[in-house]
């Protein structure tokens, strides 16, 4: 396997960056703890991603939207939804592995059954009988979550080229996910390329499906970098079940100081500002 090389390098890189970030000090910003010592580099990657999104991904997404049956609300499944379904079906074996690594048998079993049902009755994952008929929606997880379960700290915020917002922990997780995915060990090289293509297509389809929301964050925000970072961190921490600081604006009002009051546990209390 010549891919050992390809494994080793990114892994080494991922863990190097993972440990490198521990030195910096996170700050409380807009009610959220932000650890972003590489902000300058991240911002230039962000500008690159933004222009790729505007010039390549959004136009393709719009094509998919108009051609893929985005507007028809019938039982007929559009081409776009078929691609999304097939791609996300292919991601299930990797999720099963991660749930097992996290010591969570329940989502592992659910995803395993989901994969079995949708790959067969669902015709290679085009349809979703598992979700619609068997009450088995996808249990989302990845190696970034596995690392979190194992107690690895989040690290710094990073924006990855083409992939978008991430943290050092999640970036390392993405690399590892490629190698622990059982499909990559079962399929031959051509099949792997097809699977990869389908999964990228699936992501593009989702981008088209949620196009308006993505546009509003990326193209309409006053500072789309800060907004993307904020939304990613809040959403990701919620997914991982990490406690957030609630904002109590009423408490902030009482304190009447420029500092981060009301940010003690991450609750925003506007009354305390």
């Amino acid at each position, binding site marked *: 396997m010549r891919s050992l090389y390809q494994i080793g390098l990114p892994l080494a890189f991922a863990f190097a960056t993972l440990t490198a970030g521990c030195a910096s000090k996170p700050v409380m*910003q*807009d*009610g*959220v703890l932000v650890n972003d010592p590489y902000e300058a580099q991240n911002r230039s990657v962000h500008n690159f991603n933004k222009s790729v999104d505007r010039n390549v991904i959004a136009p393709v997404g719009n094509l998919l939207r108009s051609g893929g049956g985005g507007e028809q*609300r019938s039982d007929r499944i559009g081409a776009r*939804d078929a691609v999304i379904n097939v791609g996300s079906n292919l991601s299930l074996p990797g999720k099963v592995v991660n749930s097992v690594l996290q010591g969570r048998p329940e989502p592992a079993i659910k995803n395993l059954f989901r994969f079995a049902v949708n790959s067969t009755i669902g015709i290679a994952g085009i349809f979703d009988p598992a979700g619609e008929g068997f009450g088995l*929606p*996808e249990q*989302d997880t990845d190696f970034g979550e596995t690392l979190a379960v194992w107690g690895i700290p989040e690290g710094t915020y990073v924006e990855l080229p083409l992939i978008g917002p991430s943290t050092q922990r999640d970036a390392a997780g993405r690399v590892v996910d490629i190698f622990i995915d059982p499909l990559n060990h079962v399929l031959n090289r051509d099949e792997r390329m097809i699977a990869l293509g389908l999964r990228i297509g699936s992501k593009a389809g989702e981008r088209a*499906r949620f196009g*308006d*929301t993505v546009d*509003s964050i990326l193209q*309409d*925000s*006053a*500072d789309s970098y*800060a*907004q993307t970072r*904020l*939304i990613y961190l*809040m*959403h*990701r*921490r*919620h*997914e991982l079940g990490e406690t*957030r600081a*609630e*904002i*109590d*604006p*009423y*408490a*902030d*009002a009482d304190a*009447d100081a*420029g500092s981060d009051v009301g940010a003690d546990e991450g*609750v*925003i*209390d*506007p*009354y*305390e*500002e």
Partner: protein
Amino acid sequence: MRNDRRGFLTLLGGAAALTLLPAGRAAALDSDQAHALIDTALGEVYQVINAGQPPEQMYEQFEDIFVRYADVDVIARSALGPAARQTDASVLAAYTQAFQGYIGRKYGKRFREFIGSRIEVTGARPLKSFFAVTSVAYLNGRAPMEVEWHVSNRSGQDRFFNIIIEGVNMLASERAEVTALLARNQGDVTALAAELQQAG
């Protein structure tokens, strides 16, 4: 629509009467009332969504609902951050007015994706000095989303002041947005208000 409003007013009246009983504390909010507030507000939102009017009219109606159920003053002030304290009342009022229109348009656009969906209020619990109302949004072709509402009576009325969708906090997000806009306008709140009037 009128019926619903009446129902809501009756409910509020009943709630006010009830809260007068224990310890004489005026307008003490409890989980049930917080729950009812969000239920009623959502009912109005869905009436607008399902009425199928032109976008501009919808945005105005969302703004109207926002003004009646949310504590707009404290949300706008919190979004502005520390600068709110150095801003005089008339400028702050103009900014707040612009802010509520901006919210009506910005979130009104998002609500259009909610056509054919439903949101179920699932519970309410005390949190710090306020209440958290939990709900689940069921959207077409999407996994159910957790939506949490923060409700307080610190303004003198029962109002919500924050919405948290799958962990994404509206107050935090708007604070980042308004702060960035303010910086772009060199800290001038009047200029910020003018820009907000076009935004969203």
